[in-house]
C-alpha cells in the first residue's frame, strides 16, 4: 500500500499509546490518536445536532404558515421550477457519493481517487449553486422576490379553479423559500470552503490511512447539508403538484 504522506508513518501500538514524535498530527493534550480522532468525530456530530436545531426553527415557521395558508402556498410552490429542484437533488446525491468515495480513498491510500473525488464533489457543489442561481433569477424576473416589487396576482390555487391566491400569503411562502434555501446555500458555500481546504491538504499528501480525520468530518458536514436539501425539496417544490 503506497503511503504518500510526507510525515513519518504513525506507529500502531496495540495498547493505543501512540508516540507524539511519530505523528505530528497528534495533539499534545490527547493521550492517543484514537482519542483524538474519536473526539473530532463526536465534535462534528454534536455540531451537526446544533445545525439540526438551527434549520429546525425555519422548518417550524414553515410548518405553521403552510398549515395556515395551504392553498396560497400550493400556488406559490407551483411557480418554482420543480425540475431544477429535482435536478439539484440528484446533484447533491451524486456529491454525497463522491464524498464517501473520497473518504474511502483516504482510508485506502488512493491519493488520485481522493483528489479526484474531492474535486468532483466541489464541482457538483458549484453546479448546485449555479442551478440555484438560475432559479433565483427566474424568481427575480417573475417578481416573486419578497419586497417592494413583489407581485403574485391572479394565480389560481391548484385544485380550486376561480380561486386566487392571496399575494400576501404567497409572499410568506417566498420569504421562507428564500430564507431556507438561502441559508442552505450559505452552508453549501461554507462546505465548498471546507472542501477546498481538504483538497489542498490532500494535494500536499497530508492524509494517510492512519490519519484522515478532516476528510471524514468534512464529509459528515457535507452529508448533513445534503440531508437538509432532501427535506427542503419536497416541502418547497412539491405542494399539490398533482392538482
Amino acid at each position, binding site marked *: 500500500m503506497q503511503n504518500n504522506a510526507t510525515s513519518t508513518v504513525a506507529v500502531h501500538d496495540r495498547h493505543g499509546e501512540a508516540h507524539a514524535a511519530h505523528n505530528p498530527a497528534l495533539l*499534545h*493534550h*490527547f*493521550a492517543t490518536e484514537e*482519542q483524538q480522532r*474519536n*473526539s473530532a468525530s*463526536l*465534535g462534528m456530530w*454534536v*455540531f451537526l*445536532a*446544533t*445545525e439540526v*436545531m*438551527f*434549520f*429546525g*426553527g*425555519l422548518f*417550524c*415557521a414553515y410548518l*405553521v*404558515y403552510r398549515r*395556515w*395558508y395551504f392553498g396560497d402556498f400550493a400556488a406559490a410552490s407551483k411557480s418554482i421550477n420543480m425540475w431544477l429542484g429535482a435536478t439539484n437533488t440528484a446533484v447533491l446525491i451524486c456529491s454525497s457519493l463522491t464524498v464517501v468515495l473520497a473518504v474511502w480513498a483516504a482510508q485506502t491510500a488512493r491519493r488520485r481517487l481522493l483528489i479526484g473525488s474531492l474535486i468532483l464533489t466541489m464541482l457538483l457543489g458549484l453546479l448546485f449553486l449555479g442551478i440555484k442561481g438560475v432559479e433565483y433569477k427566474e424568481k427575480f424576473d417573475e417578481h416573486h422576490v*419578497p*419586497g*417592494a416589487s413583489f407581485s403574485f396576482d391572479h394565480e389560481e390555487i391548484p385544485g380550486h379553479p376561480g380561486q386566487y391566491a*392571496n399575494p*400576501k*400569503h404567497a*409572499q*410568506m411562502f417566498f*420569504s*421562507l423559500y428564500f*430564507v431556507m434555501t438561502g*441559508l442552505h446555500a450559505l452552508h453549501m458555500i461554507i462546505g465548498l470552503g471546507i472542501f477546498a481546504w481538504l483538497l489542498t491538504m490532500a494535494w500536499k499528501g497530508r492524509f494517510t490511512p492512519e490519519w484522515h480525520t478532516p476528510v471524514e468530518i468534512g464529509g459528515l458536514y457535507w452529508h448533513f447539508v445534503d440531508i437538509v436539501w432532501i427535506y427542503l425539496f419536497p416541502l418547497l417544490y412539491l405542494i399539490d403538484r398533482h392538482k
Partner: protein
Amino acid sequence: MAATPILQPVERENYLNKEYGAWSWLLTTDHKRIALLYLLSITFFFFIGGFFALLIRLELLTPAGDLVQADTYNKLFTMHGMIMVFFFLIPSIPAVLGNFLVPLMIGAKDLAFPRINLLSWYLYIIGGVMMMHCMLTGGVDTGWTFYAPFSTNFTNTKIVEAGLAIFVAGFSSILTGLNFVVTIHRMRAPGMTWSRLPLFIWAHYATSIIQLLGTPVIAVTIVLVAAERALHLGIFDPKLGGDPLLFQHLFWFYSHPAVYIMILPAMGVVTEIIACFSRKRIFGYHFVAFSSIAIAVFGFLVWAHHMFVAGISVYSALVFSFLSYAVALPSAIKVFNWTATLYKGSIHYDAPMLYAFGFLGLFTIGGLTGLFLSALGIDVHVTDTYFVVAHFHYIMVGGAVMGYLGGMHFWWPKISGRLYPEGWARLAALIVFIGFNLTFFPQFILGYMGMPRRYYDYSHMPEFQILNVLSTAGATVLGVGYLLPMFYFLWSMRYGKPASDNPWNAAGLEWKTTSPPPTFNFDEEPVVIWEAYNYEELDAPHEEGVPVAK
C-alpha cells in the same frame, strides 16, 4: 491586616508564571488562562449591566418619571437585561469555573478542543464589542425579549446590531458546550467512570446539552428578525399574514432553557461546596446527577409558560402549565438532597458555604414562586408585574450569582494560588444576602399589588413608592457587597497567603495538583480508584499523610 507582601521562595512553574506578556494570554490555548480571560470580560459586563440596574432603581425611587425619559428607560431595562443575560449570566460559571475546572476534575490535560476554546472567547469579545457599540450609539428599547412586531416593524433602535451581537455571543456559547460534551465523554482519566464524576461535571454536561440544542433556535430567530427588518419579509408581521406569536415560540424555545443554562452550573457549584463544608458525601449522588439531565430535558418542554396571556390556545397553555410543574420536580430533588447532605454533617461556615446557604434559601423561594407563575389563574394576575421580576431575580441573582460567587471563593486558592481574606469574604456574603433580599423581596409584594414591570412612571399608584425605595436601598447595599470581592480578590493576588494544594481538604482531582496548577494540570496522569466525595477517607486519621485504609 498586614499590608507587606509575604515573601516566598522561588515559585514553582505553574500556568500563571509559565509565560509572560500580552500575547501569551491573547493567544493561549490553556483552558485555565482562557477561564481568566473570561473572568475579566464577564466581570466587566457585570458592572455595565449593574450600572444600568442602578439607573433603573434610581428612576423608580420616585413615582414620577423624572430621572430619564420613557424611551430612555426602555433602553435601560433592555440593555440591563441583554447584557446580564447574554454577556454575564450565560457565560459566567461555565466559561470561568467550567473552563478552569472541567479538565482538572476529570483528570485531563486540557479540553478536547483548546483552539476552539480560544475562538469561543474571541467570539464572546466580538459580540461584546458589538453590543457595547450598539449601546453607545443609541441602544435598543424593546426589552431583552425583543418581541415582534415592535422589534421588526416599529422601533427605530439598533435591533439588527444587538441581534448580531447576541448571535455571535451565542455561537461562543455553543462552542463552549460542544467542547465540554466532547471533553467529558472522551477525556476522563483512567478510572474516572461516569459514577465517579463530580456533580459539578454532571451539571456542566447538562448545561452543555441546553447550550447546544437551544442556542441555534434563537440564532435563527435573530436571523429572521434581521431579515424582516432589512427586507420587510413579514414573517412575524400580522399585516403580511405573519404571526407575532411565532416569534415568541421560537424566542422562548431557547430563552426558557437558557435560564437552566444559568442555574444548572450554580447547582453544580453548590453541590461541591455543600459536600466539602459538611464533610459528607452527597446524599443521593445518582439522583442529583440524573436530575441535572432531567432539568436539561424538561426545561425544553415548558417555554410557552411565558406566553400564557399572549394568545396561545388554552389547551396548549394547560399542557405547558402542567409541564412547568413537572420541571420543578428535579430541582426539588436537588434541594432535598442538599438538605439531606447537610443533616448530621460537620458544618463549616466559611464564605463559600455562606453563599451556598444563601443559594439554598433564595433558590427555593425563587423556584416556589415559579410554581405560582405556572398556575394559569395566578399568572393572569401577576404576569408582566414585578412579581415576575422578583421571581427571576431570586433565581438568577439569589441563585446563580450566589453560586458563582461561592464557586469563585471556593476555587480561588486553586486558581490564584492565594487565600482570600476569610473575614472580609464572610462580611461580603452577608452584605450580599441582606442587600439582595432588601432589593427583591419588596418586588414580590409590588407585583402582587399590581405594579407593572417596564414602567418608568408609577405616579398613578404612589402607594408603591415606599417599597420601591426599599428596593433601591437594597440595590445599593447589594452593590457594595459585589464590590468588596473585587477588592479583596485583587488584594489577595499580591498579599494573600499562599495556598496549599488543598486548603479545604476537599475531594476532587483538582485538589490533587498544585495551587495554581501547572500548565498541563497534573505532573502525572491521575488514575482514579476512589468514589466521588470520599470525605470519610479524607477526614480519616492519617499516617504520614496517607489515610489509614479501611
